[in-house]
């Protein structure tokens, strides 16, 4: 029934042996072209053998997380070598790759993860909070595997506020509890500033309606949790960002998440001082913490100078 006009395939390592799985096919290719370049990335060449070894590392790594033949593994990655390693690793494991658009947000992602029943996703580190926010809707998603350092935070002097909280892990029994506490503190902060009905779902964001008013990222290092929060006093003017970062004009509106701000939602101008007061009050009411304005210690100042130098090294 199929392919009445089938023609003999061009001669390749896998030609003639129809049909072969992608995993087996790549093994044949690697056997034949081992030392030749498979990929080029940022001026470096990656040979077929290296590609295969990295794919094998992904395959065995995924297997150690319990991923098996037939399981779906989502991919939310740009064109970087990790895409090729992950894709081929998934194929060699006999699993099913589910790549999707890296510009997707919210429900677009949640639908694909639910419908495919993906057990794991391999994504850029900066998408972690986008995915974590949706995790309670995607019960089959057991692993969020992150790679790459492609964070890009845009600061608009009139709009963006950055908040960091550095605190002992021991304060909370588990990360989820810490996330919930942070979410509650910011919901209360926005409440105090007159934002109607802010809500916090799981991880990642405080929203008003479906729009994001604050991004919350919780990281851990040693005995500490570090909360990184970006919120907006007024609507951000993102146009200048596109002067530096090329985004085709017809997809600009899809490049950023739908955002909102404190002044848009509350209908009044809010200053950084007022925000600080509201946050301090929320911390004290919710977590029983008294806030005292202070300075960096001498040791911290040294670390600060070093980090300023590193940040400006670009």
């Amino acid at each position, binding site marked *: *029934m*199929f*392919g*009445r*006009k*089938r023609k003999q395939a*061009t001669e*390749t390592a896998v030609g003639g042996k*129809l*049909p*072969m*799985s*992608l995993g*087996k*096919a790549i*093994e044949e*290719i690697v056997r*034949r072209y081992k030392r*030749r370049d498979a*990929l080029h*990335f940022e*001026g470096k060449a990656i040979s077929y053998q290296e590609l295969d070894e990295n794919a*094998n590392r992904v395959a*065995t*790594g995924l297997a150690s997380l319990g991923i098996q*033949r037939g399981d779906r593994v989502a991919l939310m990655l740009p*064109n*970087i*070598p990790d895409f090729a390693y992950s894709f081929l690793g998934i194929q060699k494991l006999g699993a099913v790759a*589910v790549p999707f*658009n890296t510009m997707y947000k919210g429900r*677009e992602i*949640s639908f694909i993860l639910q419908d*495919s029943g993906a057990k794991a996703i*391999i994504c850029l580190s900066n998408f*972690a909070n986008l995915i974590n926010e949706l995790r309670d809707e995607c019960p089959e998603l057991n692993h969020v*595997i992150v*790679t790459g350092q*492609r964070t*890009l935070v845009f600061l608009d002097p009139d709009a963006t*506020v950055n908040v960091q909280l550095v*605190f*002992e892990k021991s304060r909370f029994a588990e990360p989820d509890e810490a*996330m919930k506490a942070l979410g509650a503190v910011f919901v209360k902060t926005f409440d105090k500033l007159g934002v109607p009905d802010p809500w916090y779902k799981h*991880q990642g964001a405080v929203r008003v*309606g479906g729009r994001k008013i604050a991004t919350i990222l919780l990281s*851990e290092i040693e*005995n500490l949790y*570090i909360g990184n929060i970006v919120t907006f006093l007024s609507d951000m003017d993102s146009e200048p*960002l596109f002067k*530096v970062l090329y985004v085709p004009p*017809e*997809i600009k509106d899809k490049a950023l998440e739908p955002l909102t701000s404190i002044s848009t939602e509350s209908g009044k101008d809010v200053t*950084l001082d007022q925000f600080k007061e509201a946050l301090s009050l929320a*911390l004290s009411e919710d977590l029983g913490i008294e806030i*005292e304005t202070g300075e*960096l210690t*001498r*040791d911290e100042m040294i670390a600060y100078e070093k980090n300023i130098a590193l940040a400006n090294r*670009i």
Partner: protein
Amino acid sequence: MEKWRLIYNPEGSTADVVAHGAAVAEGRIAGKYQLSTTVVPDTVIVQQSTTRGIIAGADVKVDKAAAASAEIAVAQAPRQGRNSARAVSTTPLSEIMAQGSRKFDAVDVEPDDPAVLLYTSGTTGNPKGVTLTHRNFHFQSLTVVPSMVPFTPDDIVVGVLPLYHVYGLSNGLIATLMFGASFALVPQYSPQALLDAVADYKATIMPAIPSMYQHLLTIARARPAKMPKTLRYCVSGGAPLPLNVLREFTTVFGAEISEGYGLTETASSVSCNVSGEGYKEGSIGKAAAGVEMAVLNDEGSELERGEVGEIVIRSETVSPGYWNNEEATKAQFQDDGWFRTGDLGYQDEDGVFFITDRKKDLIIRGGFNISPREVEEVIMQHPKVQEAAVIAAKDKRGEDTVKAFIVTKDGEEVTEREIADHCTDTMAPYKRPRVIEFVDVLPKSATGKVLRTELRGETVDRRLVERGEK
């Protein structure tokens, strides 16, 4: 009451936002190992930057000159290592790879097992997951592709198309690897990044979309002599390529462009309008090797050459159906093996296919079928028009009426009247757009297809997150 320290920095810099958090964390960790004598309390830092800025991860390439001229400060986020902070509830890929083994034999699977699910956004409702099997990819790479592009192991292919899309994945990465060629990854598209990749890697094959060819030509017009001449084979897909672009590109870059046609459901290409002798303007070419194509009427019988109907495809490169969606599978995948593309078109006397419209985009006015594509082509012949898209809008009586969205060329202005006159001069009056809207850009998909659903206002913003149950 427990006391926390507040570091308040209302007039900070972009680098401050990075450095304060890092300094406090480092101080705390040093304290834990008693390298520091001062006990630092838990801390909250509130900062605002007085200038515009970007905090960029170590892998982000920021255009420094552009940043400086736009007065945007750039600060680099600390490079992550094994001992640095990581997002909770995540696993680093580098960690599972380090623990994994570099040797592994591929697991045996059946040729008809799914290899990939690719979601396509339908016109309404949820996207559909297209199931693509190992058989589909094997057939696409080793039978369909070589009948259109003569890949050799010496080729260097520019990987600029997104790999999450069937075109970039199937005709880019997978085809390249199947032939032992090499693939140059472009992580973030910009016209300059693409041009640099072609030049730096001496690329020989370029699969791309029409807008990329247009962008490259825009750069080339300024300095035509400096354009790389290594390309020997280019493919355009995703949307129709204007003939003038094809001709100019061929002259400037010395490479011919073939236009491919395919769908996610066919694991990418099924036909190709190959440049050179057999080239036919506006066509999608003949069916590729191992692919049957036909034109059917609504009753499912094959139409005569020249008659417009739905284009159908039968081949081993065709998907077995949609994941988890029997209803949609039944509607588009027939029992006799034909896949209904939803594209309307015809076949000429030489067996060359032409697409006219998407079936669901047809405008029906007073019992007449109006082809939006035909109206668009007429509008685009107007010298001041850059781009146009035509859709069905509803008039007061709830009937279809022709609506045009028009992007004018840079610096040009055109009136509704001029467009209307231009249309009546060249087309039957009932086809003339009754409503005209001038816009800056047309909404497009990742491969440059105009998103008519957005123009029709049928889409809901699926980027929003629902609150769900409290």
